[in-house]
């Protein structure tokens, strides 16, 4: 049995906005699954439907085998969420926030106390935990929210843009924490992000969601493999789509080349970067040219960038 099973799940908000369009995916037990996409792609709506705060208008979803529409209490019992925005009782202490979660998820109070002690130690909250949450910094509050979600030992943990708005140091620390969860538990983690390095570092598989549809679903390695071993990037002053077309017409770029902003990216499958750069120079195209290895960023931009439609 998979930890998360999503079948033809869709959401149309009142007013007709179709935020999620019949998506399908599964997340195996113990897997870290990343849902990537730009703002408004449907990531948070998907998490909202899985955590029963948004009602699907079509399809179904199961958490730990429980249907989120017909068995919402059971589905919520096996899951926890760390929200994108702070969702805490600021006037209460960190410890009370953690205790309340434990009580509502029916964790034995003595067991909850032990877990709170472990988690606050692990997340560096030991000295803060008895202070009102309103006095916490953004990073401290986010760590508290992660600790809170873990008090109930969820089988499925949702992290909705967990590092948004955090400074680089705190972000790095949190990524270490999330990575360590993956290494030492059988917890299934589903995270949404638009930081590609997070997905590359943490996720076993990623789904890229764009305009409510999942446009790619594979391991980061498999997604990168479609770009070949190297790519050439050309910065263009002027008609970027014209340059892309010209590169395709002259056989320098294939169908998978794409343009975003002033940048044309050309994946190289059977030719070397030096040959590709020489061919670009021969065409008389000007601008900064560089060669590098592809990243998940390139996959993401190709699938979700504004120029995708024009280039397709």
């Amino acid at each position, binding site marked *: 049995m998979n930890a998360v099973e999503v079948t033809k799940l869709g959401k149309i908000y009142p007013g007709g906005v179709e935020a999620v369009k019949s998506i399908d995916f599964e997340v195996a037990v113990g897997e870290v699954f990343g849902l990537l996409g730009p703002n408004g792609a449907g990531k948070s709506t998907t998490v909202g439907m899985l955590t029963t705060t948004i009602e699907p208008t079509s399809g179904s979803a199961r958490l730990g085998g429980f249907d989120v529409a017909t068995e919402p209490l059971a589905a*919520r019992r096996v899951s926890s969420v760390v929200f994108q925005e702070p969702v805490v*009782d600021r006037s209460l202490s960190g410890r009370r926030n953690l205790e309340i979660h434990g009580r509502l*998820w029916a964790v034995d109070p003595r067991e909850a106390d032990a877990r709170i002690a472990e988690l606050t130690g692990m997340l560096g909250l030991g000295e803060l935990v008895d202070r009102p949450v309103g006095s916490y910094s953004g990073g401290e509050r986010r760590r508290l929210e992660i600790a809170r979600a873990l008090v109930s030992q969820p089988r499925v943990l949702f992290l909705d843009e967990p590092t948004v708005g955090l400074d680089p140091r705190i972000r790095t620390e949190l990524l270490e924490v999330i990575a360590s969860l993956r290494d030492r538990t059988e917890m299934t983690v589903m995270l949404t992000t638009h930081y590609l390095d997070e997905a590359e570092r943490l996720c076993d598989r990623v789904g890229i969601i764009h305009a409510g549809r999942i446009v790619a679903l594979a391991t980061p390695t498999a997604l990168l493999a479609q770009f070949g071993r190297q790519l050439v990037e050309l910065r263009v002053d002027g008609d970027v789509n014209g340059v892309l077309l010209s590169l395709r017409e002259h056989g320098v770029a294939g169908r998978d080349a794409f343009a975003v902003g002033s940048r044309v990216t050309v994946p190289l499958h059977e030719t070397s970067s030096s040959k590709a750069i020489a061919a670009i120079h021969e065409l008389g195209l000007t601008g900064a040219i560089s060669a590098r290895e592809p990243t998940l960023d390139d996959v993401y931009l190709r699938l979700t960038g504004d120029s995708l439609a024009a280039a397709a």
Partner: protein
Amino acid sequence: MSTTEIAFPARQARPRSVGPLATLARRRFELTARTPRELVVPLLTPIMFALVIAPALRTALHTDPGYESFIAIGTVGLLIPLNTMFSGLGVIVDRVSGAQRELLTAPIPRYLLVLGNLLVVLAITALQVGVLIAVALARGIDLHATASGIAWFVGAGVLFTVGMYGMAEILANRVPRQEEYIARVPAIAILPWFLAGALFPITALPGFLTWVAKFLPLTHGLALMRYGLSGDGSGLHAIWGMTDPTPMAALSLAVVGGFALLLTAASIRVFSRSAVQ
């Protein structure tokens, strides 16, 4: 930040039935206790009324001492709506900057969130009404309460509080911001008070307003509370026109009970619908 390893057993406990409500009520109480505004502000106006305005009215209008007793109980009809409506602000704070979303993902029926708030509102209202009655007694106001009279008073007070909190929950889940909520409070909490026989018998109102007053739950609540605490059945008689106060009290209690039931059911429905998109 250390990265000490911890073990996560796979066992999942099942939630108990009573625990979550107690947890939610305790949470709400702790939040309220940290917001003195919600405890003190609703009490200011009624106490000012009981201590200053009522004696001044009695002097100015040359009424008998019984009028102060009339006003003291009438003031409860202001305290309960003000207190319940101020409590509704906590619902908005929870939604906008509190932990409501976390609570919505908890494995508990969502109506418990409304009931948890309600329990705290009932406790705080009881405390405030107690303070108000104590202040009135300290001023020498004469009340003639029997055990059954106190039961009528408590029944009316509890059911009216439940109904008014239902109103507050509905409003808090319908308006997006505190400013808009507060702007509506006078129309809901204060306007009916002028018509419900708090300051004068409803028979003193123009004819059509007397009829309007008979449909206000507050009119029934105040008439019951006066009957309970001071043995004055004139309010019930003004509503029902019967002679035996007991059936009239039972009828008015049914009206206030229906109000409580209807508004509580509606508030749970509105909360559940607004909590889920």
